Structures are given as C-alpha cells and as structure tokens.
C-alpha cells in the first residue's frame, strides 16, 4: 500500500527525515510518534504529495510519489483523506457543504453526493448538525466534521496529523474511537501523534521517529 525507500528530506539545509524505509500494508493502523520536530508531519506530507523527497522513493498504491507530476498531485490526494489538528473547515459554510466539498471537486451528482455526505456524517455522529455553520461548532464537532470530510470519498488511506491535539481527554477518546472504527472497515490509517492516550487506545503499529531518524518500528498490529 505505502512503501518508503531510503527517504531523505531537508528544509532549507536542515535535516527533517534521514534515510527512512517503511512498508505499510493495506488496512494497517500506523501511529507515528515522537517529540515535536521528529519528522512526523514531514513524513505525512511526503506521502500526501505536498512535499518532494530530496532522496529516495515513495510508492503509494504502486505509484511513485517522488516522480509525480505537479498536475497529478490533486488526483493522488483524492485517493486519500487528510485530517489535521486545526480542522481546516470553511467557517461560513454549513457542515454539509464542508463535507460535500471533495465530492463537488470530483464532479459527483448532487443525489450521489447527498447520499455519501449523509453516510459520512452518520459515521461520525454529526448527521443532526448538517445545516449548522462550521464556524459555530465546538472543537470536537469540528474535528468530527473534518473526519467526515476525509472519509466521504471512501479513501483507501486516511492520514491524520495530530487530530486530537486541540481536544480534551474525553473528546480525544471519542475521536480515537472514530479512527478505530474507520480502520476496522479496512481503511489504512496513518496517524502522527504524541498523545499516549491515543496510542494506547488505537493499539496500532508504532513507528517512532526522532530528529528525522527512524528509532523503532513495532511491526503490524492491525
């Protein structure tokens, strides 16, 4: 599903990732852990196609991301979902409109979109909030809406960068449960987190990074 071969990345001369090699199978739940600046976000960005490695190769569904043309990046991103710590929702749009955005981009019919959006909102327990503007939602609700948007396209891979970073322990538990449920349905989940609670709850494969180096890889625990 995802393969990294000796990936190295620099930011303005500073080493962000050094000689990382990883192999992630379909349906795995991988937790990238490590302190701030360990290279977790950089690794996710490389897989997502928003950065190019300075050295090495990255294969996502047998497609070499390192050689991806600029014009093909959006199409690559449509095959996966991305959840961020700061939610990234359009505050002036309703929850429904926010979740429907990836489907609009794909050009799906409004009927099909509606069905998929409702399905995604039901999966995160936000069906009743579909007409509410995203700007007035609580942090937990915003993250749920964000997850709904990430899974509305039924992605094969779900990437998450500190999705519980802005949430209290109670909400963290709820969100972690959501990721667990999404992973149980066969979606490969790759999450960057330094939240011990999430790590313990998800019981996934733990990949430890520090200063751009791969410290340990605890193998598959899906």
């Amino acid at each position, binding site marked *: 599903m995802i393969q990294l071969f000796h990936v190295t990345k620099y930011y303005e001369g500073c080493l962000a990732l050094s000689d990382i090699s990883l192999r992630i199978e379909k349906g795995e739940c991988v937790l990238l852990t490590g302190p701030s600046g360990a290279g977790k976000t950089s690794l996710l960005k490389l897989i997502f196609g*928003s950065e190019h490695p300075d050295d090495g190769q990255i294969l996502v569904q047998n497609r070499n991301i390192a050689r991806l043309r*600029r*014009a093909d990046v*959006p*199409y*690559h*991103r*449509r095959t996966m979902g*991305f959840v*961020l710590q700061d939610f*990234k*929702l*359009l505050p*002036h749009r309703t929850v429904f409109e926010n979740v429907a*955005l*990836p489907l609009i*981009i*794909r050009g799906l019919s409004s009927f099909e979109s509606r069905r998929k959006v409702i399905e995604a909102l039901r999966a995160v327990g936000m069906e009743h909030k579909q007409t509410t503007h995203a700007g007035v939602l609580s942090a937990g609700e915003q993250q749920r809406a964000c997850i709904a*948007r990430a899974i509305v396209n039924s992605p094969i891979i779900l990437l998450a960068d500190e999705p519980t970073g802005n949430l209290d322990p109670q909400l963290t538990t709820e969100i972690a449960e959501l990721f667990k449920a999404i992973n149980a349905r066969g979606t490969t989940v790759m999450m960057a987190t330094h939240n011990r609670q999430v790590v313990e709850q998800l019981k996934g494969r733990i990949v430890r990074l520090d200063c751009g180096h791969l410290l340990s890889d605890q193998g598959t625990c899906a």
Partner: protein
Amino acid sequence: MSLRTHRASTLIGIITTAFTLTSFGTFLLLYYNVHNLIGRVQTNIQIIVYPKDAIEPQQLQGLQKAIQADPAIDSLTLISKNDALQDFKKQFPDEAYLLEGLGTSPFPASLVLKLADSIPSTDAISNLVHRLQQNPVVERVRYNRDWIERLTLVITYMEIVALIVGGVLALASITIIANTVQLAFYTRQEEIEILRLIGGTNLFISMPYLIEGAVIGGLGGTMALGLLRGGFEFFKHKTHTLSVIGGFSSVFEFFPFSLSLLLISTGILLGCIGTLTSMYGWMRFRL
C-alpha cells in the same frame, strides 16, 4: 458567493478599476472625437485639377472616369469655364465689369475632387496627384500639400500617444486588479489551502477567482462607461453656451455601441489578466 462575502475588497476593486478605465476612456473619447473632427475637416480638403484648355469632351470624360475610380476620392465636381466665370461674378460683383467685352470666359475649367471619409495616407494622395500631373490632358493640379501632411502627422502622433497612454493605463488597471485579487488571496488563503488539501486542481481553485476578476473588471468597465457618459453630457451642456467651441459641441459624439461594449470587454479582459497575473505570482503555478 465570495464576492458577497468579501464585499469591501470587491467594492474597492470595482471602484479602482472604474477610475482607471474612466481615465483611459476619457483619453479614448478625446481621441475618438478629435479623430472624427479631423475626418470632417479633411473631407473639406479639395484637390483641384485644371485640364488643358484644348481638351476634347471625350478626353475630359475619360479623365473624370479615371479620377472617380480612385478609392481616395469621394466625389468630383466639374466646373466649366462658364461656371467659373459665373462664380467670379457672384463673389466679386463690383469687379464683374472688368470681364465685360471678353468673348469667352478667361477662367480655366476645373475638376474639384473631395477626399474619401476614410483618411488616405499622404503617400496615396501624393501618388494620385503625381499621376494626375503626368496625365497629358492635365494642365496643373493644385492642393494644399502642407495642410494634408500636417493633418496626417497630427493623426499619427495622436495614435502613438493613444497607444502609449492606453498601454500605461491598461498596465495600471492590470496592476490594480492583480493587487485586489492578491488581497483576496491573502484573505482566503485558508480556503485555498483546504481546496488543495482535498484534491482541488489548480483550475478548480482558480476558476472562481478568474470569474471574480472578470466580474470586477466588467462592473468597473460599466461604471466607467456611466461616469464617462455623465461627464460627456455635462461637458457638452457646458460648452454649448460657449461661443469659441460652442459651434463644435454638436460635432462631439459619445462612443458608439460597439466601442462602449469594447470598454466593458476591456474591463473584463483586464480583470482576467489581473487575476491570472496575481495567481501566477502568488500561487506559483502554471495554468
């Protein structure tokens, strides 16, 4: 949608575009009217051809046909020797007695040529005059070469100035619209980030901005047209009473429909160019 959400920046964009296009339009209107005025004056410029005294009627007809076939000539009037005499008597009734006793009219017959409405180049007129002078049945040709040349020079200079001023103002419009759109980009950076995050192509992301730029440009152009029309009517009303240019005020014309449409289209085009410039600089992608 975003135009309504970001009313203030949109309004600023429309107003600045309108003012820039009004400056450009004012110059265009001035150029248009001066061009019209010169065209009217030029149609009054005459070339007078004097055939030889001994010309046969058939030769005269041939000469007339040859002249009329020239595209630079709008009309031709034959003034016979007798007509010339009558004209003299009409213009100088006190001196008419001087010609009494002369058997035939001492004045030569002439062909008065009026130039076509579309201003021919001085070269074309010179060539025509040269050809007429070479004609064996023509005695001489008279026309005010200096006047025509100066007139053409004025038009040429005006066209050059129009091109430069137009170019500078168009560049100013593009810059203003580009800045407005760039401002919109900064305020909507988050929105663009989200669209990129969920797999929006550059075209998908940029299309609303392109439409926005076109709308800003189009509305700015329409507003400029309104301002120009208002200003033009005010100017015409004020100058009507002035004796110096009052006579000319009826000659002044506003843009015809096609030029008005062109001004609005220019606004739309500048809006699109401004948006594309801004996008290229800010988002750093090729469309």
